[in-house]
């Protein structure tokens, strides 16, 4: 039952985190006006109660809490590095967008994600072809959005300085 002890510790931690969140919400809502405080208090109290129930469930019940509620877990496993790389690229993309501009960040990020997601043993020529295809897609949508749909996609502050 070693594994289940570890699991128990995790669940207790989770319950404490939820309770902490609820208390933080209650604390924060103390400075709201009367009208704005009603709902956060309801939610804060609910979170504390749910945390207590979660704690009871993890101590008393076994196995009740396992199993993913939605079909999210199918791809669990696989390479953590690829996932981490993807997340890093996404974050850089979103945070550098206004400075470096839409076309440049999108092109680099697209190729980066393409490389991360490429199946093992894929011929580099295929990858190159895909990268070119991706750049065409980016160009197409840039034109579509900025010209036809009036979406002012950022050009990049960096280029204005040069």
């Amino acid at each position, binding site marked *: 039952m070693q594994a289940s002890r570890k699991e128990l510790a995790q669940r207790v931690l989770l319950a404490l985190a939820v309770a902490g969140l609820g208390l933080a919400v209650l604390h924060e809502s103390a400075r709201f006006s009367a009208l704005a405080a009603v709902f956060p208090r309801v939610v804060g109290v609910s979170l504390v109660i749910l945390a207590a129930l979660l704690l009871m469930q993890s101590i008393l019940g076994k196995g009740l809490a396992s199993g993913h509620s939605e079909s999210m877990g199918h791809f669990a496993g696989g390479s953590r590095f690829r996932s981490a790389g993807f997340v890093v690229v996404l974050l850089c993309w979103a945070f550098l967008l206004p400075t470096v501009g839409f076309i440049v960040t999108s092109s680099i*990020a697209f190729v980066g994600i393409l490389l991360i*997601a490429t199946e093992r043993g894929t011929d580099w020529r295929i990858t190159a072809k895909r990268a070119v295809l991706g750049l065409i897609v980016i160009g197409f949508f840039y034109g579509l959005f900025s010209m036809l749909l009036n979406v002012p996609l950022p050009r990049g502050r960096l280029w204005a300085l040069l």
Partner: protein
Amino acid sequence: MEILAYLAAALTFENLLYALVGVVLGTAIGALPGLTATMALAVLVPFTFTMAPASAMIALGAIYTGALYGGAYSAILINTPGTPSAIATTFDGFPLTRKGEGSFAVSLACVSSVAGGLIGGLLLLMLAPPLATLALAFGPVEYFWIALLGLTLISAISEGNVLKGLIGGCIGLLLSMVGAAVMGGDLRFTFGTPHLVGGVEMISALIGLYCIPILIDLVAEPERGLFTGKRTTHVPLRRTLKASWDGKVNLLRSGAIGTLVGALPGAGGSIASLVAYSEVRRSSRQPEKFGKGAPEGLQATESANSATVGGGFIPTLVLGIPGTPPDAVILAAVMVQGVRTGPELFSSHADIAYTFIFGLLIATIFMFPVGLVLGRWAYNIVADLPKALLVPTVAFMCVIGSFAIHNNINDVRMMVVLGVFGWLMSRLGFGPSPIVLGLILGPIAEQGLVQGFLIGGASGNVLGMFFGRPISLVIILLILLALAYPLLFRRSRRGNYDASE
């Protein structure tokens, strides 16, 4: 027979052309996550200034109808609801895609949308004034109870662990409170940064919470594709029609729910499909199939979804109160053309009003061929793309789409941050749907609750306000039924086990 004259007026070559082009454009725009019906309309409004008012309304109504349906493509094929009204479409649509039934799901969504759109349109044509009166009977308290009814879906979709579902729901409610409060005007949970004053943008949250976790998992597995089943090569028309005929009661009921809930100004659009989904699930003999690719779930949400178009126009045309945000854009466009809208539209401009309603019905019928063709096209693109190309393309669509909602870079950042947060949460066993339900229904619940207190307090009868009104009591009954049903169901199943032992 005057009505037939209006029908003839709608059936000119020009109007038919506008309806067809409108549906195609709307579907194409709606299929891109982040491009909403409201935006499609706002962009295309200037093109209608040169048209006659009735034709302009037909074109705009067709774009609206198409855009709502187009949202089903991204919901079904890449688990990305482009609008709040499409979230329930992902519940069963995406699992169907996973099983290799994406083509069937898209066609089924098309037929269901046409059915729902026709129901909404016909009810608008025939019963608009009484339905508008009924919609007005819903006050703040009823909105509160309806939001709670929507929240009961949490317990239904998280059968594995209801507690975690409820916690997820509370997190969604918290996210919905970020920013300037409608009630009281306080800045809540903004941590002192002006970037959060606008709150969590709903659509970027939808894109982030639903789509990004799928992409993160997909990247990790370099060998496997999005679909586990075999890819279908043709449009399974016969099977689609059979499933639609078998589900006719469901389609009718969901369409009626969609029309009525869609007629509630302000709140209707995003809740209608949720209410329809929870109703079909509750009344099903096999509720455990839902969320795992049940065609009935998809039919219910898409039928209700499209029925909100007709439903939303009920208060718009009868009362002069826009039922949904796209209705407001259409109203403003017609105003700019110099046509006074509001209750007078039906009496003094009956020609425009009725020609428009017929135009809407014609556009809905056009959606059948257009939807099948475009849907097959969309399916083929997603199914044919190698995974290495699919992931960056979808990520790109997420980024450009969440920027385009409000032309705001913060929405992109919010999308990415919530996406990573959603992925971490799913590792802990928290699905995205409870969070999203909290986020969508939170404002409606909060406003209804506080407004109910204020109005009840002013009359000195808060309890009577919440529990003493007939419509409220009906909704409370539905809530109790929805909550009790899983318990009853579980007991009866246990009973079966006992019998077999």
